[in-house]
């Protein structure tokens, strides 16, 4: 079954409350894109043209409604000195934080995307993708938010203790991480792409609402204000339990909140559905990676029954980035499942 509208046409019509051929759907494809063009995951890092080629091919194969250029969460932290382990064919992960102790915080310098070889490759990927398919589908670049980057700079446990023992130092780290995020967001916006925000460490599974208000919210708000000032809307993803901070995610200015399968779309609709668009929340590992196509279909139907009538709309999505080895059949099944749901106002 072929779509009647391009993703850009669909989103635009959805925003204006006009008829759409089907609900928007975003299986959040990350390094699965490497599988689509048959290259190793590590080849995508530091090779903008190949990263673009992989994401363009994945979009063309599955036909989803948003391309998100992403390799891992550590891009900004790495450019500020964190050390990564880059396995040949799996997602990169943090090997060591940038700093050994709090006294080193003042030595940090915000990223300069124009002079940073790895960020330049991401920008190249964004540019190539926009050139190829930017007229039909929104192209976004993943930006890791300040509190999460701070945790990669300092080490997660150390930062967690510092929120109670040395809040001033945490603010310093968040401030400089915000500068990096702003510089990177600016470079992305200059290319014509919208930053897509992700802030896993701000999860309610990790910190309290009080700490979210203190250490996450002010920096998220500044970042979102800047992106709004450049005329783009903002999707904010936070993993894990988030129900007690949804109102703050909306207050920070997010236009769309992307929620994990640990949270309930029905509850989100009830609490903030009139303020923000909802995105979510099919289980990435249990359903998308390990489930059958029938499981995927049922999960999509559940998302739709819970929140398709949410006042600001719903984007059916995976609860988080898909595992690299997610079977293509399940991604196709997700797209096929939303095609039955047309909307006529």
């Amino acid at each position: 079954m072929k779509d009647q509208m391009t993703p850009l046409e669909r989103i635009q019509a959805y925003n204006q409350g006009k008829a759409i051929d089907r609900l928007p759907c975003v299986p959040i494809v990350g390094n699965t894109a490497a599988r689509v063009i048959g290259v190793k995951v590590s080849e995508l890092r530091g090779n903008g043209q190949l990263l673009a080629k992989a994401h363009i091919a994945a979009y063309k194969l599955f036909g989803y409604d948003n391309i998100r250029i992403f390799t891992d969460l550590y891009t900004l932290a790495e450019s500020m000195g964190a050390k990564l382990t880059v396995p040949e064919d799996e997602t990169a992960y943090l090997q060591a934080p940038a700093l050994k102790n709090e006294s080193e915080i003042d030595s940090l310098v915000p990223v300069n995307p124009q002079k940073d070889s790895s960020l330049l490759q991401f920008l190249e990927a964004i540019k190539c993708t926009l050139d190829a398919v930017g007229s039909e589908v929104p192209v976004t670049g993943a930006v890791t938010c300040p509190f999460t980057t701070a945790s990669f700079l300092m080490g997660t446990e150390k930062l967690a203790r510092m929120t109670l023992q040395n809040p001033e130092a945490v603010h310093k780290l968040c401030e400089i991480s915000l500068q990096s995020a702003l510089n990177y967001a600016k470079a992305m916006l200059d290319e014509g792409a919208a930053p897509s925000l992700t802030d896993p460490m701000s999860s309610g599974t990790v910190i309290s609402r009080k700490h979210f208000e203190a250490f996450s919210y002010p920096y998220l708000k500044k970042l979102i204000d800047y992106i709004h000032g450049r005329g783009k809307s903002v999707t904010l993803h936070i993993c894990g339990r988030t129900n007690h901070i949804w109102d703050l995610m909306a207050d920070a200015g997010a236009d769309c909140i992307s929620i994990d399968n640990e949270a309930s779309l029905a509850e989100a609709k009830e609490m903030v559905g009139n303020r923000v668009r909802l995105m979510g929340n099919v289980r990435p590992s249990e359903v998308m990676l390990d489930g059958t196509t029938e499981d995927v279909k049922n999960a999509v139907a559940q998302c739709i029954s819970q929140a398709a009538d949410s006042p600001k709309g719903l984007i059916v999505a995976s609860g988080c980035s898909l595992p690299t080895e997610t079977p293509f059949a399940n991604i196709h099944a997700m797209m096929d499942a939303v095609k039955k749901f047309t909307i006529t106002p």
Partner: protein
Amino acid sequence: MSNMEDTEKDFHQKLSDAVVNMEDAAAASLSEEVVANGFDAYEAIDKGLADGMERAGTLFEEEEYFIPELLMCSDAMYAGLDILKPHIKTEEQTQKHKIVIGVIQGDTHDIGKNLVKIMLESSGFEVIDLGRDIPPAQFVEKAVETDADIIGLSTLMTTTMDGMRDVIDILKEKNLKNRFKVIIGGGPISLGFANKIGADGYAGNAAGAVRLARSLCGGAE
């Protein structure tokens, strides 16, 4: 009831409160006083420090406490433990159940694992912590070497879930599957996944991991 017993009970309560209130200096000085007064160190750990950690765990489950608070409570518990441990009488040193834990290779997120370790230790288990980014075979080698009862595997990343399956496959290959219980946990893990790979149990959080480990050891303390 003698005054002495009242005082000893007071110390237990104060130690417990110091842990819940994240006061590591207080936990240390109270522990010094326990030793100076000649009170039983084992009882002070069990009814004071461990009790405080259990209360902290409950607050964590009730979403009153979060990861920073739980880490600070554990700092207070360990501050007291360092002082009291050398004073445990030998006849009280019962054979503890052993558990080998670690984060599977490909993942360095170890907060969850560390919380499980803290809660298990405060519940009387001997924990052999391999750390993070650990190859599957190493879990098995260590469990054999230390004659452990349980192997505990953690991951936050979907990319490393297969490593958990590998640990169980290695155990089967070596005919060791019945010798060790395998428990798993972490963000993307579910009971369904645990059943699918043949694990003996799944826990959704650190307090659940303690309950699970206890039940697998036949309800042992």
